[in-house]
């Protein structure tokens, strides 16, 4: 069965023909290509399915008798510098291959319907196929240079796809922001690669690890740590970890299938992949492992707090992605390779499900509220969608529960594993991780409840229009997006800024009176304006991927369940990862105490349930069976009035923090962007007035000198010319004699 290994190079190349043919078709014969536009989705799905079959075959072989396979070709021949190109297949690669191809196929099927009315349908499929190709190339790369190449290519695909709707100024600045932020990571990655090349003389993983471990025996020094940190910087940017996470929420400007595929399941996992791939290198440097786990903890907490009060459904999912990636990074920092990969898999399926579900919601909301993203993705305007889109609702609920960590859904198993690992490592990290698990449950249910429970709030769209996204999402590196003026409501907005931020709160408090009013004028104005009054369920082509992902979310957790029941070894993942595990922990036992597992699990589940409970108190609808009025009233009336004001203040602070994205974007705009602009101005000034000024002034002085001589000195008389000539000669001769 080694044949599959031999032909594995074909996997990354498979999706390429679609990109190339669409690209040339659009450039050379645009009309003909556009006429058969819907046909193009078929070959892209087909080719990716072939890639999936290949990778499934590889994965089965890895599970049965796993060994590492590598094949190389030389790329550039030079006397002292040779570069090799090849592919490298080990358990990590095969896991990533399966993940990318399955999610990729589902997203392609989904986007055939989602993008069907878009002008750029073909462009979209070309980009998508190219992305798939380069992502598959990234995970099969055999050396660091190849990783860097595909790393940049996926970054470019992400740039193109974020800026897919390029007429939107916000998308234009978002894609540039994403690219430049990722370039900061690439900067680190490149320097790290060069540093390790200098130290070990190799780019190839296994040589690199061997040589490095030999070199590193004498202990830690600064230079390897620095290089390892620089490598990790690449992963920070790509996986949206703490200081460089700013691009991910803005990346939601892209079409929703992209957010599902690139910004939730695959490309952001590339950073995780890199760290996992280089883990043998990093484990040799304890300091860097601490940094990795620290960054992971900061990110998971930050992401969760920022997700608390987002209005935009995709943005809050994006922050949730960031937080979950923080969990994975934490697990890697703790050295538990298996838990990290397990959570990577489960999170990818659950988050893809959630994003595709949100796409379905947006699709159903768009005819009602308009196609602007700050309307169709605004959760203020949603609510009560359960009645209209029941299938999406069920799938979304399952995804939410999975992400909250409710058994037996996928994320429960993996998250629980990370949480218990972190408890062994450091209690502080564990407390933060457990706390964030509660926060996760809270914000995920907030999203769910605001979207599906209660009533449809379409009539609020005027309120939301006043606070245009551009006013608080600072458009980096660019001009300010033009604010659509809404004279009537903008004054109202200015008066009660605070109330606007606390919009959801007020809303829920005064719900009981509002409901009746709203229902009354609900029917009349909207019947005239809109063709359809209620949201509609999406087409089957969109629901099918959702259902498949539900199946994954339900059952993918079972591959890694640590319980061994009798003789049937259920723990597929451990078997899969066997060789890499041996590489990392030569003698670690897999025995897990049932009792310990149970206590851990019950603890984390109870925290998640508490989060859900709090969310339902705040955001639950009056009609939900969960909530009776006593509960809310008792909660509200618990303390005296002073205490309530205090509580309000706290919530205010939290909401402001989350709303302004933790003031980090603000900081970057003020400091980084501004300083770069100042530098540009300074160098431009220097260039124009000093360097060029010298040149120009030489020109001007010589011009005036010539004029001066013409008018003042000579006056056109030959005798005076002669006089000057002779006198200068005399002076010259004088000096000549003097020197002799």
């Amino acid at each position, binding site marked *: 069965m080694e044949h599959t290994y031999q032909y594995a190079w074909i996997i990354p190349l498979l999706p390429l023909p679609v990109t190339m043919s669409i690209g040339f078709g659009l450039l050379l014969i645009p009309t003909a290509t556009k006429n058969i536009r819907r046909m193009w989705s078929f070959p892209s799905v087909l080719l990716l399915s072939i890639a999936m079959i290949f990778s499934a075959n590889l994965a089965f072989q890895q599970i049965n008798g796993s060994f590492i396979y590598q094949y190389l070709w030389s790329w550039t021949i*030079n006397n002292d510098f040779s570069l090799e190109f090849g592919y490298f297949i080990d358990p990590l690669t095969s896991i990533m291959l399966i993940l990318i191809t399955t999610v990729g196929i589902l997203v392609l099927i989904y986007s055939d319907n989602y993008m069907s009315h878009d002008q750029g349908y073909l462009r979209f499929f070309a980009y998508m196929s190219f992305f798939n190709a380069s992502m598959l190339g990234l995970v099969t790369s055999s050396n660091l240079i190849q990783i860097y190449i595909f790393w940049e290519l996926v970054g470019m695909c992400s740039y193109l796809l974020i800026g897919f709707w390029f007429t939107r*100024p916000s998308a234009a600045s978002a894609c540039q922001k994403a690219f430049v932020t990722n370039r900061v990571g690439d900067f680190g990655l490149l320097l790290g690669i060069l540093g390790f090349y200098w130290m070990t003389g190799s780019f190839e993983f296994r040589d690199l690890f061997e040589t490095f471990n030999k070199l590193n025996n004498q202990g830690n020094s600064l230079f390897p740590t620095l290089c390892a940190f620089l490598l990790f910087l690449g992963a920070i940017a790509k996986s949206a970890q703490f200081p460089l996470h700013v691009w991910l929420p803005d990346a939601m400007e892209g079409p929703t299938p992209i957010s599902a595929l690139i910004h939730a399941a695959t490309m952001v996992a590339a950073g995780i992949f890199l760290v996992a791939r280089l883990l043998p290198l990093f484990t040799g440097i304890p300091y860097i492992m601490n940094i990795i786990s620290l960054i992971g903890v900061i990110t998971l907490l930050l992401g969760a707090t920022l997700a608390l009060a987002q209005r935009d459904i995709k943005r809050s999912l994006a922050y949730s992605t960031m937080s979950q990636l923080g969990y994975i990074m934490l697990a890697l920092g703790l050295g538990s390779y298996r838990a990290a990969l397990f959570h990577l898999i489960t999170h990818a399926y659950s988050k893809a499900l959630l994003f595709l579900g949100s796409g379905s919601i947006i699709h159903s909301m768009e005819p009602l509220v308009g196609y602007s993203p700050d309307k169709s993705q605004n959760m203020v305007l949603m609510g009560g969608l359960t009645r209209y889109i029941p299938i999406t609702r069920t799938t979304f609920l399952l995804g939410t529960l999975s992400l909250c960590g409710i058994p037996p859904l996928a994320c429960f198993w993996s998250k629980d594993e990370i949480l218990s690992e972190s408890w062994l490592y450091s209690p502080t990290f564990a407390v933060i991780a457990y706390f964030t698990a509660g926060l996760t449950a809270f914000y995920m249910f907030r999203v769910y409840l605001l979207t599906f429970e209660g009533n449809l709030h379409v009539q609020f769209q005027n309120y939301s229009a006043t606070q245009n996204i551009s006013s608080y999402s600072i458009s980096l590196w660019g001009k300010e997006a033009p604010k659509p003026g809404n004279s009537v409501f903008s004054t109202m907005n200015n008066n009660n800024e605070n109330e606007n931020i606390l919009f959801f709160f007020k809303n829920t408090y005064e719900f009981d009176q509002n409901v009746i009013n709203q229902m009354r004028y609900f029917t009349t104005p909207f019947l005239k304006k809109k063709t359809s009054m209620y949201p509609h369920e999406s087409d089957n082509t969109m629901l099918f991927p959702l259902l498949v992902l539900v199946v994954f979310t339900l059952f993918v957790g079972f591959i890694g369940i640590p319980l061994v029941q009798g003789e049937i070894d259920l723990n597929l993942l451990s078997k899969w990862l066997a060789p890499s595990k041996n590489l990392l922990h030569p003698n670690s036992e897999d025995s897990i105490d049932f009792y310990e597992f149970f206590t851990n699990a019950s603890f984390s589940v109870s925290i998640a349930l508490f989060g859900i409970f709090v969310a339902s108190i705040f955001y639950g609808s009056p009609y939900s069976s969960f909530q009776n009025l006593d509960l809310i009233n008792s909660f509200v009336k618990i303390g005296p009035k002073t205490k309530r004001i205090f509580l309000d203040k706290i919530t205010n602070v939290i909401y402001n923090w989350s709303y302004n994205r933790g003031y980090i974007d603000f900081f970057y705009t003020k400091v980084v962007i501004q300083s770069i602009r100042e530098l540009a101005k300074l160098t431009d000034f220097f260039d124009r007035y000093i360097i060029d000024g010298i040149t120009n002034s030489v020109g001007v002085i010589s011009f005036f000198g010539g004029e001066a001589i013409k008018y003042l000195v000579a006056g056109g008389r030959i005798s005076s010319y002669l006089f000057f000539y002779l006198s200068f000669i005399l002076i010259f001769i004088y000096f000549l004699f003097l020197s002799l």
Partner: protein
Amino acid sequence: MSYFPWLTLIVVFPIFAGSFIFFLPHRGNKVVRWYTMGICLLELLIMTYVFCYHFQLDDPLIQFEDDFKWINVFDFHWRLGIDGLSIGPILLTGFITTLATLAAWPVTRDSRLFHFLMLAMYSGQIGLFSSRDLLLFFMMWELELIPVYLLLSMWGGKKRLYSATKFILYTAGGSIFLLIGVLGMGLYGSNEPTLNFETLTNQSYPLALEILLYFGFLIAFAVKSPIIPLHTWLPDTHGEAHYSTCMLLAGILLKMGAYGLIRINMEFLSHAHSIFSPWLVIVGTIQIIYAASTSLGQRNLKKRIAYSSVSHMGFTIIGIGSLTNTGLNGAILQLLSHGFIGAALFFLGGTSCDRIRLVYLDEMGGISIPMPKIFTMFSSFSMASLALPGMSGFVAESIVFFGIVTSQKYLLMTKILITFVMAIGIILTPIYLLSMSRQMFYGYKLFNLSNSFFVDSGPRELFVSICIFLPVIAIGIYPDLVISLSVDKVQAILSNYYYR
């Protein structure tokens, strides 16, 4: 192989055939255009034929040597010959000039003179790259200036006279130093002037004189290359010139400086070069950052692209200064790669500027919908320019990086510092390139002008940009195509440094 002066034919043919343009019947511009196009194509065909069939890649020595005695008194020969170093620039010249002629299709004003000047430049450039005699090198260098000056001052933009004067003064000022260097080098040592490259290679000078000569040549080449702080003619010139002239300027003219630096400074003055090379590396590093950040502050589209080419030439200088095989190969590759990318960016920028009749970036916007093809090509080339893997810029820049890292001349700390600063350039490059393409294409804007100007690029323009795009991709995917041309010669040059 029967002897035939192929190189003489290649050098003389364009200007000779071009001078017949003035005798063509007055039947509109069409005849002139097609005639020029035919000459360019024929020249390119001869070149490829000759290089395909008669050039041995594995031979680092000079090939196709033509040697005719010209002026007896001071032993001045018409001496031509090419080796692995010059074959790349010559082929680039043929390719870019042909495409620039095609790009200059809309030029109607005084088209006879325009096309003649293009052909004259063609001859001059090939002559420069293939000359094996120091004085001939200087003559070709000067021959180059006049067509550029005329092209600039007659077909340029509003401030064309200022730019043209600045260009001619700057480069003529540089040429003085070149002349000093040529004469100093030729007249040193023996009573007979030695101008032959081959004898000069083995000549050694006292160190002070060598440094002096090196410095003279360096100034001349620094103006052309350009190396900061002698670069300010370039943005002005590129900002004003017609885009086909810009293609020639960015694609070929800038390469003359770096070519001269390798050919004369590295080959003949190796002692001085090993003294000066750290300075070259430092200047190159500063240049990358400096030009990139200056580019960010430009409002004018063409000036922004011009500064980007200044920034990219910094990599070439670092590669030349790194004194490694890898670095020098990277420098040569960067020359060629920037020749393609820079020319294409100027072409696309120029055509879109002409269409919307704006040059300032902050006034543009939203032209991606009327011109999707220009948008596609422009984004592809800006990706190539910011060193996206799979395109030539990435290979060249990364090879320069490896060159500087593996260089044994520099200490660890300096290497770390230099690499670090170079890598900051990697962050700055996308900022200016992407914000340029964002300001030009992204967003939405209603134009007050009538729609007739907003045609997308036609087949001719598409052909030009795709023609340039193909080699960019090809070099990016398989860099050995170009590296194999120069690798032996590079080793021969650098062996001087190792064995002394």
